[in-house]
């Protein structure tokens, strides 16, 4: 039996980080877009304004590709739990396995029933039945989020379990699912998905506006996305703050690492705005501090106490250099998005929103900001949980399989090649669809020629066959 080496552990962690980061892009897009599509269809049914219907057709193509990529890239990860993390599967699988299975069942239920109707059934079922299908798809993506976040949150704040013969066994499923960090994490992720979708819709519209396409569909999409950001970004900031307070209670080492805080300061903790946490020297170099701000943010009081990293044994500390900066990238993106949404509000006066090119360029530039914030946030919370895979219960080094560094390294290389080839193609195709834009406004005579559902078999439900645009022309 080969003993896992430090390199094998490190490579296995890199492999998971790589595959999960690539994966999460697609679900985030499809969760956000699914709800957007439900709103569009609801507005179309209510107002009969064809702009909403055209936008629905257009974004359902992008959604379909994102959904397909999400399903495929997710499969890889469920196998990684076995190949690379068999210690985790064997010790904690009795808790995380059922949660994952529920996610799979939900996803297949949704895919089997409603996705096909939503993507291909426009001409085959009545408008109300179709709208119902779209609502079910949107709900289904959120239920999938529910199960995955339940499993992930349990790994951060485990409860409702017991040890038995060296294994974790579930005792109370309600406690397992509704663990202390779950409500915050679920809200934070769902809102993040909405923000991701809204930044993409806004940027796509900005691109078409900049190219001189200013028809009603483009303007409507631009306006809707900016309204959404104006509402959701502030809520996200409040939820994020609450999430942080929850983390301080249950994972204080993570908070100390995020803040680059080494000593437990009395009489109010200052906040390191920027700096370079040095794990060896146990200090944050080049720190720019604001007195009391740390306490104000994390305890909502003038001189609340926050434990410093030195109060944790060295082997229990997460890497502060990483999470300090990933956290600041996330917050920075959030602040830029807030600025963007506010600027949009100001420009609405006098209708400058659709004319102000500098602003449109800014929105275009911010296209990846939602995704960057999302990834940075996940890096913060997952790296911040280290060195534990189940916080305080199971160490990451005890979760890895008995595999050699060569095996993990080889599979990592293969996966990198496959991912860039396959999902690179998927991303390229999504961008291409966005570049083509929604159909131009049509005459009444042409109305019926919209491609959704025409000539599609009755029960076709493969998301990738929804868009028909050529990929290489």
């Amino acid at each position, binding site marked *: 039996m080969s003993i896992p080496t430090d390199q094998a552990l490190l490579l296995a962690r890199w492999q998971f980080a790589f595959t999960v980061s690539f994966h999460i892009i697609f679900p985030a897009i499809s969760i956000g877009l699914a709800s957007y599509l439900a709103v569009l269809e609801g507005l179309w049914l209510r107002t009969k304004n064809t702009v909403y219907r055209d936008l629905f057709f257009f974004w359902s193509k992008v959604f379909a590709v994102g959904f397909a990529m999400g399903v495929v890239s997710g499969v890889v990860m469920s196998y990684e739990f076995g190949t690379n993390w068999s210690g985790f599967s*064997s010790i904690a*699988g009795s808790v995380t396995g059922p949660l994952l299975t529920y996610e799979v069942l939900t996803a*297949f239920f949704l895919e089997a029933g409603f996705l096909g109707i939503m993507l291909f059934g426009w001409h085959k079922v009545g408008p109300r039945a179709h709208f119902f299908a779209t609502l079910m798809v949107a709900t289904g993506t959120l239920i999938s989020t529910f199960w995955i976040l339940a499993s992930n949150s349990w790994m951060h704040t485990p409860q409702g379990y017991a040890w038995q013969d060296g294994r974790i066994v579930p005792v109370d499923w309600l406690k397992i699912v509704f663990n202390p960090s779950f409500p915050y994490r679920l809200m934070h992720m769902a809102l993040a998905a909405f923000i991701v979708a809204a930044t993409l819709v806004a940027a796509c519209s900005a691109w078409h506006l900049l190219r001189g396409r200013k028809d009603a569909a483009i303007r409507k999409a631009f306006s809707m996305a900016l309204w959404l950001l104006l509402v959701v970004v502030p809520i996200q900031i409040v939820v994020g703050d609450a999430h942080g307070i929850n983390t301080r209670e249950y994972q204080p080492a993570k908070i100390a690492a995020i803040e680059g805080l080494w000593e437990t300061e009395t009489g109010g903790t200052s906040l390191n705005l920027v700096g370079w946490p040095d794990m060896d020297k146990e200090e944050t170099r080049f720190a720019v501090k604001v007195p009391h701000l740390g306490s104000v943010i994390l305890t909502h009081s003038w001189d609340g106490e926050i434990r410093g990293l030195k109060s944790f044994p060295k082997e229990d500390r997460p890497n502060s250099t990483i999470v300090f900066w990933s956290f600041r990238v996330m917050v920075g993106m959030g602040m830029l998005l807030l600025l963007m949404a506010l600027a949009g509000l100001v420009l609405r006066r006098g209708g400058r929103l659709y004319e102000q090119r500098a602003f449109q360029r800014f929105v275009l530039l911010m296209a990846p900001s939602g995704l960057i914030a999302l990834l940075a946030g996940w890096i913060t919370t997952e790296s911040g949980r280290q060195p534990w895979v189940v916080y305080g219960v199971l160490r990451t080094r005890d979760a890895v399989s008995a595999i050699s560094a060569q095996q993990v390294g080889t599979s990592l290389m293969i996966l990198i090649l496959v991912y860039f080839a396959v999902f690179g193609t998927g991303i390229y195709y999504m961008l291409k669809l966005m570049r083509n834009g929604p159909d131009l406004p049509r005459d009444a005579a042409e109305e019926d020629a919209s491609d959704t559902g025409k000539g599609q078999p*009755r029960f076709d439900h493969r998301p990738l066959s929804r868009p028909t645009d050529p990929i290489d022309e």
Partner: protein
Amino acid sequence: MSFDLPMVWAAIIAFGVFLYVLLDGFDLGIGLLFPFFDREHDRQVMLNTVAPVWDGNETWMVLGGASLYAAFPVAYSVLLPATYLPIIGMVCGLIFRGVAFEIRAKARRSQRLWDLAFMLGSATAIFCQGLVLGTLLQGIPVVNRQFAGGPFDWLSPFGLLAGLGLLVTYATLACGWLIMKTDGDLQRRIYVAMKPLVWALLAIIAVVSAWTVLGQDAVARRWFAMPDLFFFLPVPVLVLACVFGIQRAIRQKRDRQPFVLTAAILFLGYTGLIISIFPNIIPPSLDIWAASSPPSSQKFTLVGAAIIVPIIIVYSAMSYWVFRGKVRHDDPGYH
């Protein structure tokens, strides 16, 4: 609990895996036949026969994997490290093939490239599944509920034979499927291709059976113990009957029998496999009770599975019903 939860879950997973092998078997097998049917017209028809169902077929693999993880985490965490690289190969093969299947319909200049990805992806996925199967049949050393073998245990003559065996099996299934779903010149050529494949399938089954019986005392004892032998004897006899049945159906140009009988051979082979290893889930030493998650996990997951799995079955059956009958090139709207 009045009934044996691990047995219930073992039955569910055995059922799921069989459905997977049968259903994804014929659509993966089409990737193997692709190189021999070079005309775009033929390829289009071949793909159209599985276009509405192939991704539903793969549902069963994901469901089987997730159920194994939830109900038998120990088996999951032994089998996957033991077959590390074949698993990665299978997953990558399936990804390539699935994406190629869809993208080739949208591709103009790059279509040949996607066809290549489709063929190689299918072949890799099947061969790797065979390697996993071979490794499992040969037995995996388990110490302390952990895999205790080497990183290349799967690379054995028997594993390679099983890989080859699965290639032949899926290609035969695909022939049967296509004979049922096509007509004219294409169907005639598939009749011709299927004949030698069925003999090859019989040969492979014979060699694999002999190898496991001769190589593993436990398997031999299971099969040749009296009076069990009389209960098990129909399995090989029926396999032979099916093989001759297929050859006759090919001669008489009956277009449904080849698929049905190939599926029957698959079922018999699968049954034989279960007879050989039961009640182990990982031979030679890990049985389904030792590999189980606690009852609370199995019960909790069973609730969801009991509701959703029947719905998926009904829905899949409906898809097949809607798309029954021959597929011709001018049928509208498969892509």
